[in-house]
């Protein structure tokens, strides 16, 4: 069972919002759409749901072309970033609404609503109205409506974005099991790289209205195909700088390191090097040993990690390390790169090593 997009595009008043996009989204795992705000995640979901018109291309569900099929006739569910529940209906009626429309018997509706409410711990709230619920409960109600329905495809458009940290963690853990054996294609849009990694499955990296790369999430994280893809899939932003390869070494200003592996085979010339912040560390080690120095501007402590922004390369670099480190703002600090983790891109942005 799969949802297949063949070269679909979206054009609004002559402006192309979604460039030709082809994807095959399989059931049984999460299909993550990862991209920054405005990259086209919501547009793509609305096109798959039949809410927004498709300028060209086809959408195929289990071998049936559904491009022209009305949203009403598609068996789908959609959960928004904003908690969309019918305000004048109780939680029970909200969850039951698609089932009633489908003409299910009363006993079957009660069974399905009860099951969905149990999974999402909404049992005691079935007779309340949405405005009497907290944000997390409202979103659980919206999720319950999505799972109670017998859908072929479930679209989750940043469903956790408007929840606080704790609730987000709690629901994120719940989500994969929620949809595990529903037999539906699950599409999950998010702008947070970390969320994509936690959910696993397959990820489509969206940049500027098109899919830059698609494949197993961990693989895309390890081997981004372009600088753009690497940038989208990195938080804090990936560090990059222009380097010159000469002979068997890379030179970045005063700093040089040996070209190894695939990078060794590159012809001499200018490249862009990119390195994730967690490979630029404040302490020297066996892996991280190429020193770079810059003035520390901003430091942040989040959870058990501390990051330091320092002046280096094209846009300033970030170091992300476990534990706390004594940085003095405005002073030079030396950081150590693990050059084995460097990614190399041609100046047009395509990855070469």
């Amino acid at each position, binding site marked *: 069972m799969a949802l297949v997009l063949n070269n679909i595009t979206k054009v609004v008043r002559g402006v192309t919002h979604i460039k030709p996009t082809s994807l095959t989204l399989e059931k049984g795992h999460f299909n993550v759409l990862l991209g920054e705000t405005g990259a086209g995640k919501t547009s793509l979901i609305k096109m798959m749901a039949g*809410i927004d018109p498709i300028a060209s291309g086809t959408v195929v569900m289990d071998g049936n072309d559904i491009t022209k099929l009305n949203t009403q006739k598609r068996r789908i569910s*959609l959960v928004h970033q904003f908690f969309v529940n019918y305000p004048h209906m109780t939680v029970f009626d909200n969850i039951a609404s698609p089932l009633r429309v489908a003409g299910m018997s009363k006993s079957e509706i009660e069974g399905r609503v009860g099951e969905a409410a149990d999974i999402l711990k909404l049992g005691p709230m079935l007779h309340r109205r949405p405005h009497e619920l907290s944000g997390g409960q409202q979103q659980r109600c919206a999720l319950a*409506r999505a799972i109670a329905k017998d859908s072929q495809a479930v679209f989750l458009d940043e469903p956790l974005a408007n929840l606080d940290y704790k609730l987000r963690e709690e629901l994120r853990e719940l989500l994969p099991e929620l949809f595990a054996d529903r037999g539906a294609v699950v599409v999950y849009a998010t702008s947070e790289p970390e969320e994509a990694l936690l959910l696993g499955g397959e990820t489509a990296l969206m940049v500027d209205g098109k899919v830059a790369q698609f494949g197993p999430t961990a693989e895309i994280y390890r081997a981004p195909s372009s600088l753009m893809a690497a940038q989208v899939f990195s938080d804090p932003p990936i560090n990059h700088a222009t380097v010159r390869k000469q002979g068997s070494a890379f030179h970045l200003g005063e700093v040089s390191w040996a070209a190894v592996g695939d990078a060794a085979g590159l012809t001499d010339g200018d490249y862009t090097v990119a390195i994730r912040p967690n490979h630029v560390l404040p302490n020297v080690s066996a892996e991280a040993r190429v020193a770079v120095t810059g003035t520390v501007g901003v430091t942040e402590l989040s959870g058990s990690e501390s990051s330091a922004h320092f002046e280096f390369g094209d846009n300033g670099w970030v170091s992300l390390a476990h534990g706390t480190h004594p940085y003095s703002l405005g002073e030079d600090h030396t950081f150590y790169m693990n050059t084995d983790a460097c990614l190399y891109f041609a100046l047009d942005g395509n990855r070469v090593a």
Partner: protein
Amino acid sequence: MKTENQKAWFFVLPVLLLVAFNALIPMMTVVNYSVQETFGDNLFFWEGLTWFEQILRSDRFHAALGRQFMFTALILIIEIPLGIAIALSMPRKGFWVPVCLVLMALPMLIPWNVVGAMWNIFALPDIGLMGYFLNHVLGINYDMTQDPVAAWVTIITMDVWHWTSLVVLLAYAGLVSIPDAYYQAAKIDGASNWSVFRFIQLPKMKNVLTIAILLRFMDSFNIYTEPFVLTGGGPGNSTTLLSIDLVKIALGQFDLGPAAAMSLIYFAITLLVSWLFYTLMTKDDLN
């Protein structure tokens, strides 16, 4: 420390004075008339509840009250669904929105006696556009000055023309306040257009429709100017609504006592029906 004093009353005072002058004092004058017999030279005799009893037992009052309820019921039955239907078919965005809104508001901007006069001329059988068309082109025998049914059709049509816009504008305001997300959610649920109307649009319009029905009830129940100019209550008494009858008693016959008693009964009925309706419609929200 919380200061407790009675200063707040001074802030209420201006409103109290205003209400006293424009409502309480005139109304107390009416109460005064309603319990006395009035002669020239300002002679008054105490009558107690005689006038109230007389009005409540009067066939003429019952007939006028019956016509009044029929008029109000008919215009509500027509204007509310028609108003909702027009609001539903109006565009939600784009160039035509202001055009539609202005067109809708136009009838309401015309002075009431002008509306009556317009429809009077419009409906005249030999020279009026509508009257002529009905009689001489379609061959329908239509003369509102002779035929009570024609007179009723004309005043109802006139009121629908004049006031449906109010319902349209209120219903439209309710409709545009519904976020797109609800329509999307309903589409994804697989809901038909009827379900969308029944379960999303209608509940969202409930509050504005309550106001619309309340306003149209009160206005139509107290209607005077338009039917007075259009039919003058005739032919016979067939379109003599409560307010027209009241004016006939008060200014035609100069029976100030019965007219005052009738005014108070009239007021009490309007108030009671409005209160009942409003209480019933908002009962759910209070729980």
